[in-house]
């Protein structure tokens, strides 16, 4: 059988930083092939080369048996290659229908846009995936998961023969993932070939026929599920490069049950409401407790975190810290009280990408009111060095630019910058979105350490396994209300899904 797409020894580097050193890949017609690897292993770079967005430095690309040299994205599109981008390729200020039609509008000979046909095409495309959005909404008004779906819809509407999905599920809820998988299976029947990039191993084992693993820009292995079992333990060593037995424990192990009833209540939220979004949210967090916010995506979990960290204002309700009612009007007031938010989009909200590790780590300290006019650089350097040790940053170099760090290490910096301010409550907004396994483990360890030091953690995760691995209690949020509390041993996949969907 000949391959529909074959890449041989692709190389690519950006400003001297090697992204791909030796990537080879094959794709058969009508198969779903998974592509896995840690952050920075070159998956996205590879996908961007296939879809013509960047040119490789070396290597060959064969399509339908003949060698091609993609000069532009347009050319790839003509060859029926379509890509779902991780950093979405939507124009935020344009409407849904405009985005779906962008770049291939139908026009009259005079150059006038045929709006009716564009609308029909957009409507048909949306129906394909059963997405519930209005064609006239601006993309910037859509929820992240709807934006992601729209991105998928757009790629599908180009009737691709080869579809590349770059972490399409990172911001989707599991219901939406189901719909996507159904669609992918249908595409497979129509002889469309799919490259599926994901960090969620269980998605790969479920949907893919085969998988290819990248590590440090190299192809390191391949698993054919027709011959090999669909099991995590075969895949994870490929990604991490470590032997199997080291991973025996698995990373999603349930943490042992701990009782917090005797501990002091740190944070108390009493009938917190936000117009149209949250209704009568009440909960308590005790010292050192790790509380999860679960449920379907976009049910108001993020709003709770944003209100507590001062990015949003509440409409009514009380927030108490150590039994004292407090008012949080802006992030700096939240920080003063020891409430810190680790944002979901670390590159946008958490980091100064063009600055070095040192500056990133000292900003929160420097931004505080109680600071000398002339900064005590020596002291700051010392604190930064201890922080770097605490978060085990690789490489432990404070002068390194954050943009040159791998995604996982960037994530460490985002959390690390708060550590020197001795946090009391840490809010985590989906911190492992698009983060590889190795880094996840590190993050889980940091969370556990903090909790042991008496820091309370409120964790929102779109991934149930993450809640299971970290939380002492999980609050299920549904349409802006807390509908259920699951604690201790009852925290398991089945219970979480059942309560999220409100199945009794």
């Amino acid at each position, binding site marked *: 059988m000949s391959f529909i797409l074959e890449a041989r020894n692709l190389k690519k580097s950006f400003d001297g930083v090697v992204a791909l050193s030796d990537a080879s890949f094959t794709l058969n017609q009508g198969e779903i092939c998974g592509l896995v690897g840690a952050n920075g292993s070159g998956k996205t770079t590879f996908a961007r080369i296939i879809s013509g967005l960047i040119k490789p430095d070396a290597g060959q690309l064969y399509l339908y048996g003949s060698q091609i040299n993609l000069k532009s*994205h347009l050319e790839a599109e003509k060859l029926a290659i379509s*890509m779902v981008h991780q950093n979405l390729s*939507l124009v935020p*200020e*344009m409407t849904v229908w405009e985005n779906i039609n962008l770049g*291939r509008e139908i026009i009259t000979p005079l*150059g006038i*846009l045929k709006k009716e046909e564009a609308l029909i095409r957009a*409507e048909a495309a949306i129906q394909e995936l059963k997405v519930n959005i209005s064609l006239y909404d601006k993309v910037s008004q859509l929820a992240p998961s709807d934006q992601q779906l729209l991105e998928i819809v757009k790629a599908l509407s180009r009737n691709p023969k080869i579809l590349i999905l770059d972490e399409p599920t990172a911001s989707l809820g599991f219901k939406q993932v189901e719909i996507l998988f159904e669609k992918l299976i249908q595409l497979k029947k129509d002889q469309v070939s799919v490259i599926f990039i994901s960090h969620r191993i269980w998605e790969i084992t479920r949907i893919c026929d085969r998988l290819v693993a990248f590590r440090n820009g190299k192809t390191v292995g391949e698993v054919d599920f027709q011959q090999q079992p669909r099991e995590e333990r075969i895949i994870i060593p490929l990604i991490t490069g470590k032997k199997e037995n080291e991973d025996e424990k698995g990373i999603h192990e349930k943490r042992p049950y701990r009782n917090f009833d005797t501990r002091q209540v740190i944070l108390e939220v009493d009938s917190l409401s936000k117009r149209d979004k949250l209704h009568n949210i009440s909960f308590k967090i005790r010292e050192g407790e790790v509380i999860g916010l679960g449920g379907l995506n976009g049910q108001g979990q993020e709003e709770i975190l944003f209100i507590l960290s001062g990015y*949003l204002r509440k409409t009514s309700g009380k927030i108490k810290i150590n039994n004292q009612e407090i008012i949080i009007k802006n992030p700096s007031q939240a920080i003063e009280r020891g409430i810190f938010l680790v944002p979901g989009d670390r590159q946008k909200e958490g980091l100064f990408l063009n600055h070095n590790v040192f500056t990133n780590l000292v900003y929160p300290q420097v931004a505080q009111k109680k600071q000398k006019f002339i900064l005590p650089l020596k002291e700051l350097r010392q604190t930064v060095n201890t922080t770097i040790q605490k978060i085990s940053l690789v490489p432990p170099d404070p002068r390194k630019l954050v943009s040159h760090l791998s995604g996982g290490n960037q994530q460490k910096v985002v959390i690390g910058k708060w550590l020197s301010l001795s946090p009391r409550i840490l809010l985590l907004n989906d911190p492992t979105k698009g983060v590889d396994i190795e880094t996840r483990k590190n993050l889980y360890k940091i969370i556990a350490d903090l909790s042991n030091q008496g820091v309370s953690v409120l964790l929102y995760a779109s991934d149930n396994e993450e809640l299971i691995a970290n939380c002492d209690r999980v609050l299920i949020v549904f349409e802006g209300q807390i509908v259920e509390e699951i604690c201790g041993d009852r925290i398991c996949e089945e219970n979480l899904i059942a309560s999220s969907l409100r199945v009794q």
Partner: protein
Amino acid sequence: MKNRLNWKNIYQNPSFPSFLILIAIIILNASLQHNFFTYRTFKSNLLTFTPLILTSIAQGLVILVGCVDLSLGATVSLITVLMASLMGDSLLSIFIVVLLGSGLAILMSFVNGFLISYFGPPPLLTTYATSVLWFGIALFFMPTPGGYIPKSFSKMYRSDLFPNFPVVLLFLIGAFFILFFISRTRFYKHIYAVGGNEDAAYANGVNVFLTKIKVFLLSGVFIALASICVVAQTATGDARCGLSFSLNSVAASIIGGLSFSGGKGSIIGPIMGGLILGLLINVLYFANITSFYQEFMKGIIIIFSLAIGAIPKYLKTRSL
């Protein structure tokens, strides 16, 4: 498939505040100037405002695609210098020189567009550099205002085509027609795409390079129209006459609700912004504010208008 055109969409429209300001300033002007609603005033206002409105459209288009053109004023100046140096009395000479001037305006705008999209320096600096260049060339040819513009030409510009229909209105109607046509094309969508998110536009197969070049060419058309108006109005060539347009047109665009980062707002915005700035000077004049304070008041009011323009954004973040 239902069209959602509700009240919220209207007041959150980025051009909505400028619409309110426009109405307010018209009312203010009419109450200060008793003959505001006469044909005479209408015509004299049109003659004064048209260059600013046209340059605002030119600037607005460039801002929509995510760039800015600070050389626009210097271009206008250079064109007036060119036209005043070359124009003769015959109708043919007028016609040829006007065409030549327009062509040069479009070419100069193209140079900006090409430099920006091919070499990729910040538009602000690129057009600042070209503006110094154009200004230098204009000064070289005409160090002091002068040149010759035939009386017949400026008379024609100030005359009425029909009773109660000034010639200058043709410029605006022409501009509206071009905009109306453009706004229904694929190209117009591409302007918003490139301005809104250049990488996304590219990933969707939009030719970013060509879109920017086309926008600058189109902008050049409006600069050319504005230059013709200025030269006919002042009947001289002046290397400094256009300089104020550069930043006034930027202010008009932002007051009109465009976002400086591009891709946001409607091209109607700069038109309203231009009108607001024009009427503003009227109001200050009729309110008997001495010319010493006029600039001061103008500054205050522009800041005020910009602040009001930020309201939709504020409302949006509050209702997040």
